[in-house]
């Protein structure tokens, strides 16, 4: 079990800055994030995009901002549980929260700070009827182990790097048959991967179906076939053992929705005094919270994190007086 002072759900910019502000108060932090790396949206969606409204940075790339925040948090030795989704929350007899992830990692802390941004990133699922019936019965949204597809017929959908890379990989003596279905002629992946796919298709090693999309799934229990709607040639059926739709990730509020927090329009209601939620000991900061006048800006999340840790300190140490100390006077003394 991982014990900490503040358990932060979400390792985006706001969660990372919380580590720094908490550290100044000698509070330790641990972060959980569903993504395999820290940085949240900044790292996952737009690492190469510039941000212009971070004070004192006229321009900074989102990925660089994450690197700087990691550097700033480093003296306070945050712990990370990455690639796991915070699933359940209960309170123990000592008034501490126990948070367990989807993979069974258990965390314990007196304070929870939800800095979950837009929620957990999950694979986009195509709107195909009866799709759910075939999940894990031939339909997979992530390729975990390519060996799983050895000797099998596989259809991949998508036009990005993961669709192209997996097509190339599985066509190289792993799967018995590989078909790539994509809605248009152009691909957005790396030019080398695109060329490789086109070469494989030209030499007949894969089947490439552009201008098409999968509109139907069938099979008795396990997936047996797909219906593909082609722009000009109408519908055709593909026999297959597996279908891997790779359409990127999109955020969902996820299990937090069931944590008995007051939620309005996918955001957690907080008191702007300290960004506390309706559940004592649970705070919500950054894009995931809402209050009158809320602005979804990284800048505002930093402010919320700073005020929140003061309140968290008083909750953990009700008898201690807290005096604001300036880093310029005291420096940053890590753990």
């Amino acid at each position, binding site marked *: 079990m991982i014990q900490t002072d503040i358990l932060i759900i979400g390792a985006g910019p706001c969660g990372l800055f919380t580590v720094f502000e908490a550290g100044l108060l000698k509070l330790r932090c641990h972060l959980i994030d569903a993504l395999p790396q820290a940085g949240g949206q900044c790292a996952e969606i737009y690492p190469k*995009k510039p941000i212009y409204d971070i004070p004192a940075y006229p321009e900074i790339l989102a990925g660089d901002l994450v690197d700087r925040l990691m550097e700033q948090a480093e003296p306070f030795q945050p712990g990370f549980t990455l690639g796991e989704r915070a699933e359940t929350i209960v309170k123990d007899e000592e008034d501490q929260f126990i948070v367990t992830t989807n993979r069974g990692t258990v965390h314990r802390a007196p304070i929870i700070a939800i800095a979950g941004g837009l929620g957990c990133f999950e694979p986009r699922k*195509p709107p195909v009827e009866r799709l759910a019936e075939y999940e894990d019965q031939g339909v997979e949204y992530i390729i975990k182990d390519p060996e799983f597809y050895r000797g099998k017929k596989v259809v991949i959908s*998508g036009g990005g790097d993961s669709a192209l890379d997996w097509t190339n990989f599985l066509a190289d003596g792993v799967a018995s048959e590989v078909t790539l279905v994509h809605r248009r002629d152009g691909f957005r992946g790396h030019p080398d991967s695109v060329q490789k796919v086109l070469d494989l298709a030209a030499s007949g090693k894969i089947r490439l179906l552009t201008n098409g999309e999968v509109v139907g799934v069938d099979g008795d229990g396990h997936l047996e076939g797909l219906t593909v709607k082609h722009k000009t040639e109408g519908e055709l059926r593909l026999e297959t053992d597996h279908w891997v739709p790779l359409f*990127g990730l999109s955020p969902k509020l996820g299990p937090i929705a069931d944590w008995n927090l007051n939620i309005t329009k996918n955001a957690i209601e907080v008191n702007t005094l300290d960004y506390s939620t309706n559940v004592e000991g649970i705070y919500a900061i950054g894009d995931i919270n809402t209050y009158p006048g809320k602005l979804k800006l990284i800048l505002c999340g930093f402010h919320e994190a700073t005020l929140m840790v003061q309140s968290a300190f008083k909750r953990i140490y009700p008898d201690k007086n807290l005096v604001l100390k300036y880093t310029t006077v005291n420096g940053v003394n890590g753990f």
Partner: protein
Amino acid sequence: MSIIRVTVIDREGVSHELDAPTDMNMNVMELCKSAELPVEGTCGGMAMCASCHCYVESEHADAMSEKSDDEEDMLDEAFHVKDESRLGCQIQLADPLEGLIVRLAPVG
């Protein structure tokens, strides 16, 4: 200040006639949000989430900027994509778009 008339048809088929300013650097996603129509605009307008996917139903293709590679790439990850699909955040409101009609694409 210049105003154009934009019609947004929501996912229930209801038409909303909106007055859209063309001098505020606004796009169709932002216009929908300001009218509290059900458009998430998750990524904030970077053509990175497709939550503002819509169909242009009026004859305005020539009056609009061409789809950028970013927009085309994002539409690859969207569903129910048609020839007239656009991301609302990439349609900048401008005077030549007077009478624009867009229909919100299903969320899937």
